[in-house]
């Protein structure tokens, strides 16, 4: 399996001089196509920093990011925006839906951003994804008429719409109760299996991480562990 996303000796320093924070220290790893992986670590360990750099939202102070065999570190803002639109699906802790728009309008937002006209194909895909998300029949509902769990599922659907190379999720269930959390991870797994979408999910919950196939652990900005499909030692061990 080829790596679709590679972190190569990533360094990230926030600020300058005495007050600077070294948020990432020489982080290197690759994510295979179709992989279902998680990043775990304590608060402040650098998980979001890492994910934002991998998602081309931020630029590292050192090292490279390679997406689909292309070194994307040196791209300009517009090129990075186009690449994010095409190749990356984001799911954040907050759903970030546009409240004035319907569910299906929110879902097709990435397609519209790419400048494409919304056609029959997009509508079919919207329906299919809404079915997969258990949101059938809600396409024309206004986004803020949904429950918190439903909103987060729409946000996941939106991330899937452009058939991205990888979905990057940062604490996607941080605002949800345990039942909804379960539901979202089962959904991720289904999407991963049905559509072959690659996932990289940030969480600080070891129980959640155990549901993934690979766990990358970050501590104080360093990648300290990379375990595949095996037994995870209990927290703090």
């Amino acid at each position, binding site marked *: 399996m080829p790596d679709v996303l590679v972190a190569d000796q990533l360094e990230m320093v926030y600020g300058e001089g005495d007050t600077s924070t070294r948020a990432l220290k020489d982080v290197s790893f690759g994510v295979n196509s179709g992989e279902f992986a998680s990043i775990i670590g304590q608060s402040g360990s650098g998980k*979001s920093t890492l994910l*934002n750099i991998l*998602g081309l*939202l*931020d630029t590292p102070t050192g090292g490279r990011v390679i997406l689909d065999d292309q070194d994307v570190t040196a791209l300009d*803002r*517009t090129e990075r*925006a*186009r*690449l*994010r*639109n*095409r190749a990356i699906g*984001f799911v*954040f*802790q*907050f759903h*970030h839906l*546009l409240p004035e728009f319907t569910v299906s309008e929110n879902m097709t*937002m*990435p397609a519209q*951003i*790419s400048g494409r006209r919304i056609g029959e194909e997009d509508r079919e895909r919207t329906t299919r994804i809404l079915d997969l998300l258990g949101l059938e029949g809600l396409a024309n509902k206004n986004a803020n008429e949904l429950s918190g769990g439903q909103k987060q599922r729409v946000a996941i659907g*939106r991330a899937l719409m452009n058939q991205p190379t990888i979905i990057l999720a940062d604490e996607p269930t941080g605002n949800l109760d345990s039942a909804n959390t379960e539901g979202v991870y089962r959904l991720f797994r289904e999407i991963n299996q049905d559509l072959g979408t690659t996932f990289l999910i940030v969480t600080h919950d070891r129980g959640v991480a155990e549901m993934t196939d690979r766990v990358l652990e970050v501590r104080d900005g360093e990648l300290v562990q990379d375990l595949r499909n095996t037994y995870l030692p209990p927290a703090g061990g």
Partner: protein
Amino acid sequence: MLIIAGIAVGIGIQVFVGSLITSLQADLVDSTVGSSPHITLLPDDDADFVSGALVGEVSDDPLVTTAIPVRRLSGIYTNGEDSLALSVTAGTSDDLDSIYRLSGRITEGSYRLDMAEILVGIGFSEDADVHAGDQLPLVLPYGTVGEYTVAGVFDLGAAAANDRLAFLDDASGAAALGQGADEYSAIEIQVEDVFASTETADRLAGIDGVSVVDWQDENEELLSGLAAQSGSSLMIQGFVLVAVALGIASTLAISAVQKTRQIGILKAMGMTDGSAGRIFLWQAALLGVAGVLLGIGLGYALIWGFSFAPVDFTVRPQASLILISAAIGIAVALASAIIPSRSTSRLDPIEVIQGA
């Protein structure tokens, strides 16, 4: 949306005030010089008359619309102890009509100037109790008395003109002054644009043996009054525009701040800086166009409303002014979008993501 109403009011005032001032001034200028000569050629100090042959030469000037030869004399009418002075202009009826536009302003009798016929103003007619068909004896410059028949009475709309002006047939004028066929007191001229008369006057000053009188030289007060009025109207319009611009700018700025989060997330999903910036340009253009259209409607409504005002004056909507106001309105709207567009364009999605 309140801001559209704001723009509409601004543009409406613009259209109305602009049209009002322009019409008012046009009206004032028209009543001042619309039916009188703009430029007059008089014999200079060494000459007793101007040659009628100059009319052809003057008419060749492309800016001259009318040039007529006239004879000028004063006449005194005595009725018992009262005596009334008349300033008489003699010429052919067609010539005189082309400058003084008398034929449409006859209130009594008819417009014609046959041999020994005279037209008098309504003010004089009432004061002297002389009416169409009556005989009018006038004491002339050389002490002779001319006996004329009143062919008609005119109303030029200004008391001074109605009291003092009279028009006499050409032959009687020539006889009274002892002028030959080619000898005239003056050549009276109208030009296309009354405000550009000086240019023509300067050119005509090159003709030998004449001195040139320009209406603008004799109406300096009126002209400086008009200039002051235009200036203050421009200033009002300028302030209205500034208010409109500030209104749009603040609306867009608030909207930009409110939408920062959403735009940040759209950028995270791949919206480019350029498209993000254009959101507000579009919004401003939309606001501008809607406001301008409504404003023009409002301006017309005000002009229409004004037509019911108890004044003897109509405001004509000024097409060029409306176009300029519309263009400026939209340009101002777009200009006020520059700052929010720039900040939206520069917004880094990471700020929104991290701040969430």
